[in-house]
């Protein structure tokens, strides 16, 4: 198996993140040339630094969080279909957030939404681990994900049907679809610490995830503390995914697509995939967010919808290629 040197791949991903971040600041209804970047008197300066910079930063943070969460979940479960979106973690985070929106507490205090979303994500990861038990069978995992997805969906539907007024319904629905539009600096400040902390915890799982490739007994025989790996993974995914969902709503498939695309480039060792998947997630979300902004439509296409449109067929293709292994 020949593949490019790791430093080259990481460097390339970093250059892509920077290039797309710059493009993301420039692109939109108003195309802002570089000349306006340094001139604070120019009205477009404000477009870049007050409106677009938070959106760009969030795209990087959320992409990194979802990409790394996906890579960690795949490594832990030894299952290439694992993803916070596909297995219902994001949906449970959204359910947690919707509860606070429904009761009105979330509208006043953004940190309440964030806490509820992270709690929802944490419960989801724990339920996933409990429902699938000791087996790493793909079938039990995906079924556990389906159950979570269904439960969260039912909860959200219940909240919607019981919503006190149409305004609350539209607020919830809008937010559920996942978007980076109209986000501002406070949202970045809210999500960034949790996403960074979550990614930090996930990075600590690298060796354990590597050892898990020979199964749980094999990993234990190598001196790996499986309980520690499990908790780091669960809390890390909950913080990173929960905080992301709290500020952007549900953006699925990032954690599914990115590790899969990167495996041929950096190898399949789960620990080696964590950092590249964070960078790759940032690239994917930045690119998708630029694409929805540039799409000529009356209202902006929601990022979550665009990712689902991209991710659905991808998921389908992945499933087809894995069919023999699952059966």
């Amino acid at each position, binding site marked *: *198996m020949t593949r490019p040197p790791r430093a080259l791949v990481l460097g390339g991903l970093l250059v892509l993140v920077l290039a797309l971040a710059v493009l993301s600041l420039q692109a939109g209804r108003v195309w802002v040339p570089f000349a306006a970047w340094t001139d604070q008197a120019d009205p477009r300066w404000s477009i870049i630094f007050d409106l677009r910079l938070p959106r760009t930063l969030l795209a990087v943070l959320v992409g990194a969080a979802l990409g790394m969460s996906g890579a960690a979940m795949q490594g832990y479960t*030894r299952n290439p279909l694992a993803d916070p979106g596909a297995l219902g973690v994001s949906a449970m985070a959204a359910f947690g957030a919707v509860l606070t929106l429904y009761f009105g507490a979330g509208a006043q205090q953004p940190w309440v939404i964030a806490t509820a979303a992270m709690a929802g994500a944490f419960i989801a990861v724990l339920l996933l681990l409990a429902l699938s038990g000791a087996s*790493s069978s793909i079938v039990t995992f995906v079924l556990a994900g389906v159950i979570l997805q269904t439960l969260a969906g039912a909860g959200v539907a219940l909240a919607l049907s019981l919503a006190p007024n149409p305004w609350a319904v539209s607020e919830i629905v809008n937010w559920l679809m996942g978007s980076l539009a109209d986000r501002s600096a406070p949202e970045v400040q809210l999500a960034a610490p949790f996403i960074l902390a979550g990614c930090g915890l996930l990075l600590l799982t690298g*060796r354990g995830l*590597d*050892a*898990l*490739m*020979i*199964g749980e*007994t*094999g990993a*234990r*025989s*190598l*001196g*790996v*503390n499986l309980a520690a790996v499990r908790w780091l993974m669960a809390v890390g995914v909950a913080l990173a995914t929960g905080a992301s969902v709290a500020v952007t709503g549900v953006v699925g498939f990032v954690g599914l697509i990115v590790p899969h695309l990167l495996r041929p480039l950096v*190898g*399949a*060792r*789960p620990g080696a995939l964590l950092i590249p998947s964070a960078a790759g997630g940032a690239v994917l979300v930045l690119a998708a967010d630029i694409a929805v902004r540039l799409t000529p439509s009356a209202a902006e296409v929601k990022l979550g919808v665009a990712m689902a449109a991209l991710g659905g067929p991808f998921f389908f293709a992945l499933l087809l290629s894995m069919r023999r292994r699952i059966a």
Partner: protein
Amino acid sequence: MSRLSAQGLRVRLGARQVLQGLDAAFEAGQVTAILGPNGAGKSTLLACLAGLRRPDAGAVRLDDQDILALAPRARARRVGFLPQTPEIAWAVEARILVGLGRTPFIGARGLSQEDAQAIERAMASANVTALADRDVTTLSGGERARVLIARALAGDPAWLLADEPLTGLDPGHQLDAADLFRRLAHEEGRGVIVTLHDLSLAARLADRILLMVDGEVLANGPPAEALTPAVLASAYGVDARVEPGRDGLLIDILGRAR
């Protein structure tokens, strides 16, 4: 010489008493084969010996220290373990899989020069150097078995415990793997303990046989002493003929004992 011993091991799984106060001692430099009918408790004993299962009563001592009192990493450096039905979840190169054996040594900095040398030594020892860059999921059963043995050797453990390592290999590759285990014990001074089902293979491979029935030791000694027709009749309920063969014993199962 390193020594591994079990004293009064009792393990209950659900309603079944799997090990009933089992005593056994193992010496380094020898290959011991643990034999016994299905459900005799071979795998459970091996997991206890590797420090991976806590017995309900009794203790496993590694050089007169309770193995469960060792820190997991310290234990992992001294006792290598090959699980039954090895799972390899990802399509990685053989060298990376073998490198997992260095997990109990790796610090925050990643693989050191010393780790890299140990990996190369382990691959040479298990005769898989030529496979180093191959994707492990594309290897044949025999190749994969040797790579997994190299993985356990990469940590340079004094003890190598393997749960049915020869199952699923053709006769030629079974002999190759058996020779490898003998070399690891006789030339490198490691203690090797394997569980097996094939009696003739066990007789050829092992210096000592530990034959278990219902969680107790039925016979314990060199193959010629442990594997007698009377013992086999009592352990497996079969009539067998035991004769000296070219390398060890020829054990011919004639049929169910009448």
